[in-house]
């Protein structure tokens, strides 16, 4: 009796000791929370904090918080003022009037000379920014301060998407301290360089990036300032690319906001859908490719179902597209009749693709484990094509289809990261100078009519006129089946209780995150 009592006593003592140790070490209880800090997650370390040198999507997301652009998209997809309060552009540039009161993080006024210096440096060939062509087009650029708050921008080649280009975070204004120390700017070590609402206070590779809200910042666009709740004092980003872990962490309370799989959305009361770009099939029309033949391209288009692709890749949560842009994009075609209707059975019965040999190159980044690419392969194979299927990681795929070796592929599943939210981002991949000759075109299509329309688009200054020409251009390349539109590229973000996130124009922008009062 005494023996068993002693044993029970010892057991209780052990339980108390273990529990105390766990409590003391912070092991028990809900994970740490801080109402002023929103905990989010980057999928990878930002490779650079220099807006001119952005490469990965997290680079863009981070820089959007740190650098303001002259213009922005509002929540209805309209271009509105950012640092600029007024602007007047034609095809060869124009003037920008800056808003009063904007300052850099160190208090330096964001006047015309600061803005002109930043734009000139971004557009300079010495900077070698990959984004320059999307902001200013192919030609040379000169930005000049014509008053304390007036900037004149001149382009040597027509580019009617300048207003959309200036919404792109790559054109974000870098303050003088950043231009003096570009190496420090790239690594995020020059806090005085920031012009946006947040400053980077901690950057530990792979571990944590902390952005703190500037107390003196007052340049919120109208649509953002009217969002419910208040901006977080601090946003802390850990790093990880596993969407299942992200989902578990949001549910477990150790994250407030993170990207999750589209198939996981039912686990969360609140999710935000963010549009990244577009996904479509591109044909290489090089002389060695079978897809010089328009009828073969049309047969491929008939073997692919946009709805099925959306279902397997995004669990049906993305948007089916009828051009190289989503329905909210300016001038985007919404006429379903312009795209081929899915009828793989007929293609199979007619033997249109029977024995056609093709090299199909795709990245495994489309859907879970590359299931989007797999879907296309299955449909083509089922239709009778002999497909040399090359599914690789994103870097290998980009090296292949965006490299100079034109005959190395025949058909690819392409995904844009459409930072300017324009049709031009996609159109410039199938029109104009081929990649190997210094341009962006990967289709190498012989399409004089399309080229003419593309040139006209670049010259159009009136928005309605531009959309009319864009519609003609879309009819042109959709009729020729230079591309097969599929869906928008989307990411789904799960939100913890108390967090509001309404991405403006469904585009990623962490400055629109709000904490409920």
């Amino acid at each position, binding site marked *: 009796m005494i023996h068993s009592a002693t044993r029970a006593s010892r057991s209780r003592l052990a339980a108390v000791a273990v529990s105390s140790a766990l409590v003391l070490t912070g092991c028990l209880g809900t994970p740490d929370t801080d109402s002023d800090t929103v905990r989010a997650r980057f999928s990878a370390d930002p490779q650079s904090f220099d807006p001119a040198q952005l490469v990965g999507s997290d680079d863009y997301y981070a820089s959007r918080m740190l650098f303001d652009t002259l213009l922005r998209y509002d929540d209805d997809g309209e271009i509105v003022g950012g640092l600029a309060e007024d602007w007047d552009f034609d095809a060869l540039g124009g003037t920008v009037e800056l808003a009063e009161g904007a300052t850099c993080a160190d208090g330096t006024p964001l006047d015309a000379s600061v803005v002109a210096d930043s734009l000139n440096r971004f557009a300079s060939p010495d900077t070698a920014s990959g984004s320059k062509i999307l902001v200013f087009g192919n030609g040379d650029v000169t930005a000049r301060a014509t008053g304390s708050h007036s900037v004149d921008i001149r382009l040597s080649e027509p580019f009617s998407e300048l207003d959309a280009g200036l919404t792109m975070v790559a054109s974000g204004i870098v303050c003088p301290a950043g231009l003096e120390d570009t190496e420090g700017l790239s*690594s995020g070590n020059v806090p005085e360089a920031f012009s946006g609402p947040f400053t980077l206070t901690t950057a530990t590779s*792979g571990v944590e990036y902390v952005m703190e809200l500037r107390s003196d910042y007052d340049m919120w666009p109208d649509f953002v300032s009217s969002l419910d709740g208040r901006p977080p004092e601090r946003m802390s980003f850990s790093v990880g690319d596993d969407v299942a872990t992200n989902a578990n962490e949001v549910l477990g309370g150790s994250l407030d906001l993170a990207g999750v799989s589209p198939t996981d959305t039912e686990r969360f009361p609140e999710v935000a859908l963010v549009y990244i770009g577009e996904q479509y099939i591109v044909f290489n029309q090089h002389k060695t490719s079978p897809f010089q033949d328009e009828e073969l391209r049309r047969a491929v288009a008939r073997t692919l179902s946009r709805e099925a692709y959306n279902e397997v890749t995004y669990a049906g949560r993305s948007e089916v597209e009828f051009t190289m842009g989503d329905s909210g994009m300016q001038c985007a075609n919404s006429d379903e009749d312009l795209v081929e209707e899915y009828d793989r059975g007929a293609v199979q019965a007619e033997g249109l693709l029977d024995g056609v040999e093709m090299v199909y190159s795709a990245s495994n980044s489309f859907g879970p484990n590359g299931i989007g690419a797999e879907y296309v392969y299955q449909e083509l194979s089922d239709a009778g094509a002999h497909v040399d299927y090359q599914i690789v990681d994103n870097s290998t795929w*980009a090296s292949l289809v*965006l490299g100079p070796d034109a005959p190395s592929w025949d058909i690819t599943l392409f995904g844009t990261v459409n930072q300017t939210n324009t049709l031009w981002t996609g159109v410039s991949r199938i029109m104009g100078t081929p990649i190997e000759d210094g341009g962006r075109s990967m289709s190498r299509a012989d399409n004089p009519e399309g080229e003419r329309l593309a040139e006209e688009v670049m010259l159009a200054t009136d928005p309605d006129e531009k959309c009319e020409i864009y519609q003609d251009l879309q009819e042109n390349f959709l009729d020729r089946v230079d591309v097969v539109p599929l869906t928008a590229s989307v990411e789904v973000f799960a939100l913890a209780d108390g967090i509001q996130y309404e991405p403006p124009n469904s585009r990623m922008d962490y400055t629109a995150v709000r904490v409920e009062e």
Partner: protein
Amino acid sequence: MNGDWTMTSVHSTAENRLSSRAPQRNLQAWIASPWVWFLTRKLGTLLLSFMFLVVVTFSIVLLIPGDAARAAAGPDASLEVVEATRQTLGLNDPVWARFLTYVGDIFSGTLGTSFRVGTVSEQIAVRAPYTLLVAGSAIAITLVLAFLLGVGVTALTRDGRRAWLAQAFSWVTAIVDAIPVYVRGTLLIILFALTLGVLPAGGAQQPSSFILPIVALAIGPVCSLSRIVRREAESALQANYIRTTEGWRLNSRIVYLKYLLPNVVTAALTLSGLMLSGMIGGALVMEQVFSWPGLGTSVVNAILTRDYPVIQGTILVLGMVAVVINILIDVALAFVDPRHLHSRSDV
């Protein structure tokens, strides 16, 4: 007086001669010591492994498909920008020149400059503590728990006693050991993070974030090593020297700790060397499950972004850590059982 002086003088001369020979003898004895040859062999192993790893880590990046310059410049960059990036990163240099640069970077201590930001050594300095802390803790826990469990269950089930415990131990350890580390991690997340809500599911922002990764990593090796320890302990209990201690009616604590444990340690440590260096590999897998900011996620990201210097430097460091762990295990074995000093299996 004079004679005394003479005697003293002769005596001290002899002493001096003897003392001058003493260091020589000590040196000879030291050289003849099996420890010297043992440690020399281990040093040779270390150097050979280092040279092998340098060549291998340099060569593997040459086999990775894709264009590192395109990955660094981004998908929107023109070929002109990509070419300029390639030149800047030194990717146009001949292979031999790149190898010399790599070796130079290793000996400079930087391990090279990342294609993204900073030097490789800086990145490793940030990330390594996370991996080493988790792997090191898991190794320590494995060694302690495995021996306690193995010897403890052997003692409790000796001579057919508590058959249920023997059965339960065998089943539970076999099942847990058979579960891959990423599944163990997921199960722990479901239980402790999602169901009970007492521990974070991932990340490393809180001290409590360390618990699940360490447990996920250690629990498998604890099971497998404790099974080995138990088997060794059972065999040792049948040995004559243990029977002799029983004949002497020694206290069982002395029997287990003084006579049984050292003999069990020898065999178990031999296998644990392989197991523990494998644990480093397990840590890399575990990092993906828990979004752990260690060297594993660093290597995976570097491969995806074609950051060659980070791939090379990190794998080199991880490889050397595995080699050093195995050498330390060999030294520990030799310390416990000097017969291992004469083993030539590692030469």
